[in-house]
């Protein structure tokens, strides 16, 4: 019994530990991946910001030939002096030249391109509001600084569209400032997709407090982590202004509804624009077997696992053999002894565990047979000794049978029973000192009366048994 129980407990502990380990591993995995993802989106955002910086520098540099174009400079000198041709005519001349130059910029062709005189007045314009001149823009930082002599970039919002802007001063003969050229490219879907290629697997959104300009969410690879959709990244934008950390220009948020993480970064500039980069949170997959490749399966130590399982089975069989084999053998011997005689009953005291239970059940069955035979014989059979002819071979003397006895015999048998009980308690590792004879005999008397009353029997018989690892006295009706 001990071995089998130990084995069941061991299996339960192993199973419980395995479940706990799996749960803990999943939590730990998810926690670590959440931290990794938070760091990753921060890195993604910085990558995008650095790209935008480099992109701005490229646009500024590519404006240099345009700002130094002879025809444009000449027209700007005329516009600056405000002599000769009318502003409208000069505006047409500058706009025409800007249009030609813009076409030559290739992929950096501006969606908006205009020239500004030293007073900050637009004197030629291509693209948005083409050919509209006369507006004052000299106080806008991008233009103001270009007119002062700086090359500069910025982000503007014009008519609901965000533009990446760049500006350069226009110099005449290297001695005079005669204005500035201002160039802008709209932030559109294609540009966002180009940016998103820098951070594979991440969603990218360009936004302002009032609107989302453009966004891109990649299609997840098979078994990959789905990035949060553009809408999920745009949703918390309204709350950014209320966050104290936004003053530093960056906020990292978890997207619990979409299982993702997003990093927001402010893009300093006149558009009040920002960029959001988001990723999904990888979670320990429950369908990982579906995604396992042949190589993954080849790496599993199947031989070791098989050997371990076989070893556990052998140990289990050994335990069960030790546990049940010996008891089964003793029970078989007891039945053989019953068959041989002269005993008419099994001795449960000699058996333990399930064998003890079976012996008691067998004895109860024998008692029942005796009672039926007594009733059937009309009283000829009054005791189990009379069953000799029924249960044992003629001539065998009945032994080890507990029958109604006189008080002296009963006291003697109870004394033997007491000694068996005390011995059994010691075998079971229980304290025997606290069990006095008087108390034991009193308990037997009380039990006998209860059995006689309940079963309407002539008496009771008692046997010492081991139940659940503890010594006990079992009472059964007699006669």
């Amino acid at each position, binding site marked *: 019994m001990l071995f089998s129980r130990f084995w069941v407990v061991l299996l339960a502990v192993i199973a419980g530990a395995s479940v706990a380990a799996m749960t803990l591993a999943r939590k730990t995995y998810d926690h670590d991946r959440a931290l990794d993802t938070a760091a990753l989106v921060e890195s993604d955002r910085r990558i995008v910001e650095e790209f935008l*910086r480099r992109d701005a520098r490229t646009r500024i540099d590519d404006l240099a030939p345009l700002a130094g174009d002879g025809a444009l400079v000449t027209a700007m000198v005329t516009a600056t002096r405000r002599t000769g041709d009318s502003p409208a005519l000069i505006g047409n001349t500058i706009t025409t030249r800007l249009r030609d130059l813009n076409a030559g910029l290739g992929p950096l062709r501006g969606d908006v391109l205009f020239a500004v005189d030293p007073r900050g007045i637009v004197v030629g314009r291509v693209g948005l509001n083409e050919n509209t001149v006369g*507006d004052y823009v000299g106080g806008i930082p991008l233009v*103001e600084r270009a007119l002062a002599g700086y*090359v500069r*970039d910025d982000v503007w919002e014009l008519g609901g569209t965000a533009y990446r802007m760049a500006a350069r*001063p226009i110099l005449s003969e290297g001695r005079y400032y005669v204005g500035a050229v201002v160039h802008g490219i709209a932030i559109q879907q294609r540009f966002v997709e180009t940016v998103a290629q820098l951070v594979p697997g991440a969603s990218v959104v360009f936004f302002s407090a009032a609107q989302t300009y453009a966004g891109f969410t990649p299609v997840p690879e098979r078994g990959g982590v789905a990035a949060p959709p553009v809408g999920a990244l745009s949703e918390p934008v309204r709350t950014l202004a209320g966050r104290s950390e936004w003053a530093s*220009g960056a906020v990292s948020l978890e997207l619990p509804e979409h299982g993702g993480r997003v990093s927001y970064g402010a893009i300093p500039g*006149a558009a009040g624009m920002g960029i959001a980069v988001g990723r999904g949170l990888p979670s320990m997959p429950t369908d990982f077997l579906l995604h396992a490749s042949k190589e993954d399966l080849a790496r599993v130590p199947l031989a070791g696992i098989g050997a371990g399982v076989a070893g556990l089975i052998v140990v289990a069989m050994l335990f069960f053999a030790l546990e049940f084999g010996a008891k089964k053998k003793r029970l078989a011997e007891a039945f053989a002894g019953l068959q041989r005689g002269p005993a008419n009953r099994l001795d449960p005291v000699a058996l333990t565990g399930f064998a003890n239970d079976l012996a008691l059940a067998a004895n109860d069955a024998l008692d029942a047979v005796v009672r039926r035979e007594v009733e059937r014989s009309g009283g000829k059979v009054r005791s189990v000794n009379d069953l000799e002819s029924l249960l044992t071979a003629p001539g065998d003397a009945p032994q080890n049978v507990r029958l109604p006895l006189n008080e002296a015999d009963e006291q003697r048998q109870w004394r033997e029973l007491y000694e068996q009980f005390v011995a059994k308690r010691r075998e079971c590792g229980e304290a025997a000192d606290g069990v006095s004879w008087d108390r034991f005999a009193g308990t037997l008397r009380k039990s006998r009366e209860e059995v006689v009353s309940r079963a309407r029997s002539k008496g009771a018989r008692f046997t010492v048994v081991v139940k659940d690892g503890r010594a006990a006295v079992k009472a059964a009706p007699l006669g």
Partner: protein
Amino acid sequence: MRRRAVAAGLAMMLSGVAAAHDLRGSLGGADTLTPSPRPVPPRWRGSFWEVPNGGLAIQVPRANLERDVAVVLTGASVPEMRQPVTARVEGGRCVPGTLVVAPGTTLTVDNEDLLAHEFYVVRAGQTEPVVASELTASRTRRQLSLPAAGAYELRDQRQPQFRCWIVAGPGQGRVLPVDRTGAFSVSGLEDGTYTVKAYFEGAERASGEVTVAGREATVTLSLGGEAAPAHEDTHRHRDH
């Protein structure tokens, strides 16, 4: 000779009936006015390119008298400005650069710029908003109410270098338009003593008193130092 005597007599009669005269003035020392540096916030630094062109020296910004200086005339017969006062934002600048208003004045910011702004108001030299920022889209306007007398700055979240100074105080009179050369004038003044003040970037840079008595008066204010002493112009005289 007779005709000249008649004209002189008519002039004397008219001057005794109507006593409305002009005041002309000019601002001196404009070269000393240099716009204060407006550093970008620390988190903006390095976020965009702003480097010298490498071919020609950077131009130092200069004050624009027409746009950046406010001249205010006060006197017993000059009523305070009527509300509301409008500040026009155009091309990234506030026109006029300094607004002089009475306390409690409702200020309308008219964004005629092609870009949107997020205006907010702080007390001069401070950073804590007394009027919270709010998006003011292109070609829209926003009304502000200043809490009390004092000097304020209208700023823009999107363009940290944007400034519009507001001086709110009692006894503000009439704002006189100033041209590019620093000249200003006002007509129809009754005889009396007037005070002329010039403000630049929210601070009073010059002031002077001028007495108008039966003829056109002139005043010159030196923005570089103390206000020039007021004096009567004896060269021009016009009667009504």
